[in-house]
Structures are given as C-alpha cells and as structure tokens.
C-alpha cells in the first residue's frame, strides 16, 4: 500500500465516518478500528519503505553509480565552464560495472569518472573499506608538498613570532617588513576582524607586509573578504558567485557580487606581497582574488589550485561520501580561474633541497621586491 492509498483511507473511509455521527457507540467502535487500521498501515511502512518513502536507488554497484552520476548531473556547477558532457561520461563508464562488481571495481570506475572533472573540490571517501580517499585537482596529483614548509620558514626567517587565536602567525622578517602566515580561513567576519586587527596593529609601523597563504585547506569565503577589507581604502568588486538552483544545466542563480570595503581602525595601504602555491585552494584563492584588486599588492610564487566553488558533501546508498562543486566563482571582471588557478605576477618555484637547507626562494623574492 502506497502513500496515496493512505490518504485515500483517511479522506474517503475515515472522515465520512466521523461526519456520520460519532456519538453512537457503534460508530465510535468503527472509528476506533479505522484509526487502528491506519496506524497498522503506517507500521507496515518498514515492509514497503522504498515505495512509501520514494527511495530511488538500490545499494548495488549500478545503483551507487547511478546515484552519484545523477547528483553530479543535477548539482555540479562547472560542466559548462569546463566543457564536459556528463552524459557522455555516463555512457563511457557505466558499462564497466555490473550488479556483481566489487567495491574495488566501483571505486575505480567512480574515481576514473571524477578525475575527468580535475576539480580540487571533488573527492570520494569510501567509508567502511580499506580503499584510499580520493582528491581531485592538484591536491590529488601531488605526492608531496615540496615547495613550502612553515616550520622551516619560521625558524630561518622570522625575527619574532606571535600567534592569533587560531589562524595567523606573524612577526617581523626584517626591520619594517612584516610577515604573516594565514593557516586557515575557517571562521566568519567577527573572528577575522579580531585576528586581522590584532595582526595589523602589531605592524602599524611596518613599511611593507608579506602575506603567505601557501599551505593546505580552504574555509569560508567571507573570511578572505573580511581580511582583505583591512587592506582597501575604497569599496571594490572582486568576485561574483552563481550557484545551481535547479537540475537543468542552465539552472543557476543570478550572480551575487562580493565587495571588499574598508574595515577596522585603520587600513594597511603600504606595499604587500602575497605568496601563493599550488595548494592555495578554495577560500585561500578567493582571498587572493580580493587581494589582487588592490594596487599595493603583488603576487609571488606558484599558480593557485584553481578550485574556487563551494563544495557540498553527499553520500551514496552504500554509505560512501563524496563532494561536489556547486557553482561558478568569477572575478569582478567575469574571468574564471576554475581548473586553472590564479597565476602569480612573479612566478618563483621553490626547490625541496633549498627548503631543506633553510632557503625559501619565494619569500626571498618577496623581500627583494619590498626592500
């Protein structure tokens, strides 16, 4: 018995009985029995829950593949930007599975298909198996993070070192030249107003500042917006975001405009060098988008990861988790760096051997520019 039948019972069978006059004992008894019948039907939900609750997918290899493919089809926001025909991918990869395929086969097919997207915000966590977590984009391709090591930098370059509550480590790197490493962007306006205010207050007398956003991990775009607003003297459009709002390929929201505008007791308007690398991803990258609109900012290092869109978490019928990018993040001028990354104005690549010997070429280039 399906859900419409339950309603039919309710409206056609039960309610007229009430209307018929329930002050008679016999009717009351029938009313009670009808009520009881309804409850038994609802109890029977466990027997036909798939139908009653509208569950679509079986927990088998094909059901799991279909669930994942369909969610990407409806929610992934970068097919058009990346020129990917998702239907073609389905026809290419689904035939590699059967109802009897193993977890390993399913994992391999899904990872092969997701790799086409080359997206740092797309991942797969095969819960309950020994299979590895998959990351897309540069993060998934790098064996090691060979071009940055904060502990070595701190030991070899910083004259002093201070920490904010959770995100920033800062100190002077030379007289009048400050350095701050932002380790995460995982909070909102209030927290980052406080952190940035504290850090900039320390550098009130600095003539220049190096902001280092090399390293791993993203956070909230609003964190970057808040920090960058402490470096601008006027309102500036730096980013637009448009996210999926329906299942069709062209279903996107109108673009939201992101602005930075002066915040805090004072704004730092002296020269700034922003250091980036291939793992500068997500909220770090949207922070970079904000900073490159500022006239006093120069970028040095490597191209960023090229994964701007927010990601959402999903799950498969077998319990595995995965993530999807949901929209288009563009510069204020409408340029998308998705899948490409923001190229630095001055490219400098660190070598592992130099780092191990205590030398950070990227940082030294920044110092050279600021002296």
């Amino acid at each position, binding site marked *: 018995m399906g859900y419409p039948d339950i309603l039919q019972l309710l409206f056609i069978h039960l309610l007229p009985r009430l209307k018929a006059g329930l002050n008679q004992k016999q009717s009351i008894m029938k009313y009670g029995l009808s009520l009881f019948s309804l409850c038994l039907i609802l109890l029977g939900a466990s027997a036909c829950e798939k139908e009653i609750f509208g569950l679509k997918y079986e927990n088998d290899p094909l059901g799991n593949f279909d669930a994942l493919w369909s969610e990407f089809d409806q929610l992934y926001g970068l097919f058009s930007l990346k020129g990917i025909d998702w239907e073609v991918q389905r026809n290419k990869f689904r035939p590699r599975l059967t109802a009897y395929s193993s977890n390993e086969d399913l994992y391999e097919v899904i990872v092969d298909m997701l790799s086409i997207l080359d997206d740092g915000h797309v991942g797969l966590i095969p819960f309950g198996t020994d299979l590895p977590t998959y990351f897309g984009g540069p993060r998934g391709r790098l064996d*090691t993070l060979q071009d940055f090591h904060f502990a*070595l930098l701190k030991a070899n370059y910083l004259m002093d070192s201070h920490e904010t509550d959770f995100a920033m480590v800062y100190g002077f790197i030379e007289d009048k030249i400050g350095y701050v490493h932002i380790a995460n962007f995982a909070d909102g306006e209030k927290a980052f107003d406080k952190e940035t205010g504290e850090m900039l207050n320390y550098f009130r007398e600095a003539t220049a500042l190096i902001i280092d956003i090399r390293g791993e991990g993203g956070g909230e775009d609003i964190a970057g917006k808040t920090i960058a607003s402490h470096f601008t003297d006027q309102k500036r459009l730096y980013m637009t975001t448009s996210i999926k709002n329906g299942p069709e390929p062209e279903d996107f929201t109108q673009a*939201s405009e992101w602005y930075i505008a002066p915040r805090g007791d004072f704004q730092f308007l002296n020269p700034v060098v922003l250091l980036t690398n291939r793992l500068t991803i997500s909220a770090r990258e949207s922070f970079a988008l904000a900073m490159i609109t500022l006239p006093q900012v120069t970028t040095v290092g490597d191209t960023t990861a090229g994964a701007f869109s927010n990601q959402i978490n999903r799950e498969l019928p077998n319990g595995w988790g995965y993530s999807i990018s949901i929209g288009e993040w563009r510069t204020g001028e409408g340029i998308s760096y998705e899948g490409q990354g923001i190229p630095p104005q001055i490219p400098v690549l660190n070598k592992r051997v130099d780092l191990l010997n205590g030398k950070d070429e990227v940082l030294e280039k920044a110092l050279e520019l600021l002296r």
Partner: protein
Amino acid sequence: MIRLFFILSLTLTWSTIWAQQEHSSLGVDGIGLKAGWTQAFIADQHSSPLLYQVNTMNFGALYQQQSNHLFEIGLLLNIGTSQAQNIGKRVGTLADAPDIYGESESYEIEANPFLSFLGGDLSIKMLWPLNDRHHLGLSTNLRYMKSGIGLDDWHYTQLDLSPEYAFAIPLFAGQLTASFSLPVLAGIVRPNYSLDPSLPNLTNYYRGYLRTGSSITSLHQLINPRLGVGYTWSFNNNRDIGIQYSAKWISYPDPRPVRIFEQGVDLVYFF
C-alpha cells in the same frame, strides 16, 4: 514498536467497553510536564539516497485552560540518535599531502549517530465544542528538526496553521481523546537547491537558508496529517496523568522530495 501498538490497540479496543457519560471535556486546567519517546523515519532525497531512522527522548511541558473552549500551548523537545538504516556509524580518514620530509597528518572523519538529532515542537491550539464529544478548532505549530544527514548538517523548519478536529469521551476513571489536524497553510525553511547559500554577507547558514530556501505553501505541496490519541486518568487530588500517542506524516517536494514519518508516546503529568 510492537509494544507501542499493543498499547495503542488496547486503548482503542476499550472503546467497546467504556462506560458512557453525558459530558466530556477535552483538556484539564493546569500545567503538565511531558516525557516520552519518538521514532522517526526521514527520507530526504535532497540530502541523501538513504532512509534515516531517528530515536529520541522527549521532554516538554504544556498548559491547558478549559472553559467554554480549550486553549493549549505546548513545547516538546527531542534529543536522540539519527542514523542511516543498515549503515550506522561511519569512520573514514583524510590525510594532508605529505610534507617535504614525506610526513603526513591524517584526520578521522566520523559520521556518528550519537546525539545527532535535535528537535523542537511548539504548538498552540484553540478548540471549541461542537457537542458533548466533538470539538473543532485551529492549531498552529512550529516544528524544527536538526540532524546530520548526507554527511552534512540537515534541518527542517515548518510553521503552519491547521484546522483541528478532536474527540473526547469519558472512559472508566479517565477520558479518551483523539485528534486529527492537517496544515492548510505553512511556511517551510529547507536548504536551497545547491545546499549552500553562498551569499556574500552570509554570517550564518540558517539565516542564509531563510533567505534562499524559504517558501509559503499549502495542501498542493505539503501533506502533513497529524493524529493524536490519548488517555488521561483523573485522581481525587486534582492531579491527572495522561498517555499520548502521536503520529505524523510529512511529504513536501521542494527543492527535492522529503518524506518523514514520526510517531511517539509521551506521558503527561498535570499539576
């Protein structure tokens, strides 16, 4: 569950043997404290292909005023577990990229059902007697549910207005009641289509969904029949104890279909 229905069937079967009296009142005058248990099944296709099962403890209070009509205001809070059926707790590992020494930090990602469901139900109702046993009125309900579904935050908020029918009849030393309501107008807050508001001035995800995932709806979309059955014993010292069974079905299609079945039993002690 079987025990629950045994109690329910017993209560309803008593309808054949009750001692009829001429007058009945739907509620009592006073404040009651509630405690009980709720079970729910949540299938939200917008968040997950899986069916989630919820078990909660309930705590709450209600105030009833019985004059020529019944006025009732009640609050029920739920706290408990929520987990995908047949899957339960899940643990996975995320690892940072190895550093220049080849060392890597790893983190456990855990989907843990323990205390993963929070809910609240605030209701206000007024019912007028049609005759000795039948009552008709209006109720308004604010229902909020928050859990972890689809490896992310999940929530559902509904504020609605419903016509409500209630029936009461004396039985033995107490009174048997039953009620039925169906929201005809509701405001619902759910995650937007992309499950992330992504707004430039977003300071709070829930506020973001209020702006991007709210809608006013009615019976053409929201089907939410609610059934209640209860029995209240009256004691000589003007104290009453009641047992109440409730069942609800929610079906709402936007942005993608969610279906929820809830049922629960609560004990009420009236001062």
